[in-house]
């Protein structure tokens, strides 16, 4: 009994924690705050410069004209913006159905060894450097045929599939079993259940995955270097070399001309606006959506 009574007083009061331990505690808190500041500093700096250099350089000519020859001021990136839209359109057209399909396979039929193999492969593909995917797209579609928007689109599609596939699977698995069973109970065939009950319920989550994949490939440059190649003229044909916004930024940034540097900043601003607005739209959709808050 005396021991029990003595227990509370045996614990050191807060003031008895040695100054060294208290100092370490405060010091480490300070270090953690410092790391946050150091990490956010480049973010602020990059966005600051993008707005400062980019916004000032955007004008009507930039958005409506094609690049001027070397040394001539003016011109713009209209063809690159259109080219990016074309390439991303091709990429989505190929990547989204395959990605969602593979996700459905994994969620509905993938509880076996082949499913695990697909799952692992998707994770591996996610880590393959984008430039390597560019080489493969070049080997399949460019060698012997010439550079094309299609090759660029295929390269980006390959990069979209793993992300879409894994998020689709995750989202479909979150749909309660009872919902599927209710559909089966009504005599709805399995394929119909999957498409109009399971997939429909998980729509906003699946769209989130698609948009994230889209945002990821929208800024990719490396896989386009030797697939779409770039172009200083208008091109909207799938089998011709095509300009893309990231490619044009890269070329202009490496040039020795101030006017081109200015346009590179403007192009970056347009590109980041495209990406950030799509990411923000996704977050908004996820918050508002009935599903996919995981």
């Amino acid at each position: 009994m005396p021991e029990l009574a003595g227990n509370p007083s045996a614990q050191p009061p807060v003031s008895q924690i040695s100054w060294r331990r208290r100092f370490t505690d405060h010091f480490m808190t300070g270090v953690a705050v410092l790391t946050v500041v150091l990490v956010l500093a480049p973010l602020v700096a990059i966005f600051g410069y993008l707005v400062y250099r980019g916004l000032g350089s955007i004008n009507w000519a930039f958005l409506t004209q094609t690049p001027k020859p070397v040394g001539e001021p003016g011109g713009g990136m209209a063809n690159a913006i259109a080219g990016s839209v074309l390439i991303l359109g091709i990429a989505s057209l190929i990547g989204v159905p395959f990605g969602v399909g593979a996700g459905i396979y994994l969620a509905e039929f993938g509880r076996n060894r082949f499913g695990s193999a697909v799952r692992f492969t998707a994770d591996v593909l996610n880590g393959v450097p984008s430039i390597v995917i560019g080489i493969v797209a070049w080997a399949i579609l460019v060698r012997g045929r010439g550079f094309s928007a299609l090759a660029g689109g295929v390269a980006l599609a390959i990069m979209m599939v793993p992300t879409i596939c894994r998020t689709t699977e995750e989202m479909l698995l979150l749909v309660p079993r009872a919902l599927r069973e209710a559909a089966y109970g009504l005599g709805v065939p399995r394929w119909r259940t999957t498409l109009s009950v399971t997939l429909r319920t998980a729509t906003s989550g699946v769209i989130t995955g698609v948009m994230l994949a889209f945002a990821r490939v929208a800024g990719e440059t490396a896989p386009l270097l030797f697939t779409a190649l770039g172009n200083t003229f208008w091109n909207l044909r799938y089998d011709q070399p095509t300009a893309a916004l990231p490619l044009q930024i890269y070329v202009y940034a490496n040039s020795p001309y101030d006017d081109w540097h200015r346009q590179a900043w403007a192009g970056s601003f347009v590109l980041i606006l495209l990406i950030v607005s799509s990411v923000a739209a996704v977050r908004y959709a996820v918050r508002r959506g009935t599903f996919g808050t995981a």
Partner: protein
Amino acid sequence: MPGPQPVEGTKVTAVSGERSSPLLRASTSEVPDRLFKSAMTVCGFAVLGVLVLIVYELISGSGLSWHAFGFKFFAGSDWNPVSEQFGALPFIYGTLVSSFLALIIAIPLAVGVAVFTTEMCPGRLRGPLSFFVELLAAIPSVIYGLWAMFVLVPLLSGYVQPFLAKTMGWTGLFEGPPYGIGMLAAGIILAIMIIPIISSITREVLMVVPQHQREGVLALGATRWEMIRVGVLRNARAGIVGGIILGLGRALGETMAVTMVIGNRPEIAKSLFAPGYTMASVLANEFSEATGDVYLSALVEIGLALFLVTIVVNALAQLLVWSVTRGQPARGHA
């Protein structure tokens, strides 16, 4: 009346049979279901097929160079397209050094941010803070490169490099003219790019550490930092290492930003101020202009080496992260 009974009975069964047959037919007819399943399986197979295709194209494409140089390809430091001599050592060296430099800078920062967001900061700040850190991951590589060329490099050559040369020049790591462009710039921009990956995985791993671990350590009279060190970080070690390796995988394959600031000179220099070259950069710069089959094949072989290294690194990272978060639903604060 024994006669009508069976008649009635057959009538009833006939009716019930008629009524149930469409339903029965719908559930037993497997044709659309099978079609659907095989279509989805084809999609799943396509994922596998793409990987097989990548491996096949890389191996078949690099055959010529492999036969010409063998293992010497990875040991030689002479890269001369004119005399068709290809040694990839400077690129391997540049890739490794820039990536490890990036890790050294990124690890403390990323882990610090993750610890702050999960353990220290007020709940209201958590969402916005992780959003901002993940925003770093949304910036395209080429924009990092642009920013590094016009902001980071002048900053380095004007202030940071003279300072480093003066205070730590004796180590030999910070010698030579402070051009700004070089290994150090590449390492710093890579570090900024991989911080969000390491940080978000560390955060995920820290969040699956059970709450009672923290409460237990606090109840023993630990301060908050001691609780984090003993109760949280120690439990999450394997997962954090997994996140770091995943960041390494990203750094190894990163192309555009590095190409724009590393200087692109195939040399092995001790000083971090000196220009270098990475495997990904040489592909970016030379692939579309390569003439000659051996030259192309040598470049594809570099691609193959890069592919194999990143696969191994990523698989290792996946295993480590799984070993911590396995069976735990991811708890997002987003």
